[in-house]
């Protein structure tokens, strides 16, 4: 289910903990620099794009994924230039009608979109080059509670199963449940009908989840589970990894200082 692509290359060779630090550093750079620092955005994008190329990732897929995620974000921001009263304006007129678009607001939205897109791009590179299991287990190194990691890992293990169940239930509904004439004629009745069956399917999935959890628990007891959560000991970091993290932190700091310098 994850975006992971099995391959080899520069990004694959990095330790997961170092990649986590890199993602956080880039997110911090993007969030802490002045909003209209276009030069820094372009520089960051160039670096990320070069990394994607160097790792031989399918660039088209990377872009497709990142733009797909941007659509709902765009929908949220889209009305702002039309309602904001910040001059100067663009005017689009047709007959007696005209639309007023605030120019500074349009630029601000572009910058906001670019900021979120850069972080999404970084996250996509991260998930494409790291398996989900590695991502979750590396959280131990950041002192995330073992219980939470266990819940997430259990969830991940059964997600494929329940997703398949959801898909097969949806297919069965389409194939077997035919709405009555009343539901087809009346729009509200049809919505009610759809919601009722979706709710029942979710209810059924939850019942199955409860039953399955009982079986998992029995299996855990048989394998010696006594309530104590044990986690694998994550290998200690080597000098190279410390150096990589140090480099990333300096890189981040330089970018932030540089951004404020440009904006002066």
């Amino acid at each position, binding site marked *: 289910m994850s*975006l992971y692509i099995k391959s080899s290359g520069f990004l694959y060779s990095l330790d997961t903990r170092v990649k986590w630090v890199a993602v956080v550093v880039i997110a911090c750079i993007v*969030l802490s620099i002045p909003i209209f620092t276009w030069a820094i955005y372009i520089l960051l994008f160039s670096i990320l794009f070069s990394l994607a190329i160097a790792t031989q990732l399918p660039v088209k897929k990377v872009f497709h994924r990142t733009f797909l*995620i941007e659509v709902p974000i765009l929908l949220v921001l889209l009305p702002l230039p039309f309602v904001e009263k910040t001059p100067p304006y663009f005017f689009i007129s047709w007959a007696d009608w005209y639309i007023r678009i605030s120019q500074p607001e349009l630029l601000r939205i572009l910058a906001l979109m670019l900021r979120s897109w850069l972080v*999404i791009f970084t996250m996509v590179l991260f998930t494409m080059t790291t398996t989900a299991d590695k991502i979750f287990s590396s959280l131990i190194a950041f002192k995330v509670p073992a219980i939470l990691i266990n819940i997430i890992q259990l969830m991940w293990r059964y997600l494929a199963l329940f997703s398949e169940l959801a898909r097969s239930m949806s297919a069965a509904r389409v194939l077997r449940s035919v709405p009555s004439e009343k539901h087809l004629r009346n729009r509200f009745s049809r919505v009610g009908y759809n919601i009722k069956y979706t709710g029942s399917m979710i209810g059924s999935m939850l019942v199955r989840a409860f039953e399955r959890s009982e079986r998992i628990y029995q299996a855990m007891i048989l394998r010696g589970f006594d309530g104590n959560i044990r986690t694998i000991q994550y290998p200690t970091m080597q000098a190279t990894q410390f150096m990589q993290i140090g480099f990333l932190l300096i890189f981040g700091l330089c970018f932030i200082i540089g951004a404020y310098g440009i904006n002066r």
Partner: protein
Amino acid sequence: MFIKQQLMHIPDGFLSLILSLILWVISIITIFIAIRHYTKEKNNQKLPLMGVLAAAIFAGQMLNFNVVGGTSGHLLGAALATILVGPWEAVLVMTSVVSVQAIIFQDGGLLALGANIFNMAVIGVAVSYAVYTILNKVIKKGKWAVGIKGFIAGWCSIFIAALAAALELAISGTSPANIAIPAMGSIHALIGIGEGLITFAALLFISTSKKEMLDETSKGKPVDKSVLVGGVIIALVLAILSPLASSNPDGLEKVAEDLGFISLDSGPLYEIIPDYTFPGIHDERLATIVAGVIGVILIATVTFITTNRKKNSTQEK
């Protein structure tokens, strides 16, 4: 096109760094309290249950239902998780769901994950728990009782969480409060109906096919007062703060003003609290808060009287 709760998954770049960090701290504290509750309870069976339930809720979010005009909606699940496993466990379940969505599927930002956990796993759970617990006192019996309580809890969890997200966007300066709050509020008031109806149908299905699932959590378990009070306070603060933050008049009133037919408004027969402001208090903001508090007290009194009457009539029988 989808009417998705994705609107509530705030991406990176939309919230200020300071606010993101503050909400991270609040979320981490809440998660630690939830873990402490879990370890104190010593119910080992809950660990696999929380994991599998999180997977089921995540998969349940993939089931879209058609609404109208090619739009569709899907479940968020905070209310369902709260009703089925209790508030603290639901916080952990929802945290897992929201985290995996952000980390693996990029649905919501990484630095904004604290805010998303706060909105969906903390506020969503606390509000739905408070509403469900209060309604448990009022609606006790009836074929549809569990569904109705679930519907209201589901709607409130979505609506209040959306108000929180809108306020966060406004505080960060991404979108002005007078745009973000009405927009997010109105869209999520509609999405909340879908969430409520799915919760209603799912709970009715569970109550008919495996009733003990609901009995295990609702009966014999003391009410968690801290979550109850927290949920009520969050709901009140957000419900009162939001109209204050959004200084523009109501949408319909504004349209009426713009088109010049507001003078045709005949007004109500009587007004207890005109325009949500309290007579005699000249500061408009203070007056709105007082009016809000009085409204809440009125509703609480009515609920209390109804509950006591029901209790008395049951005892007499």
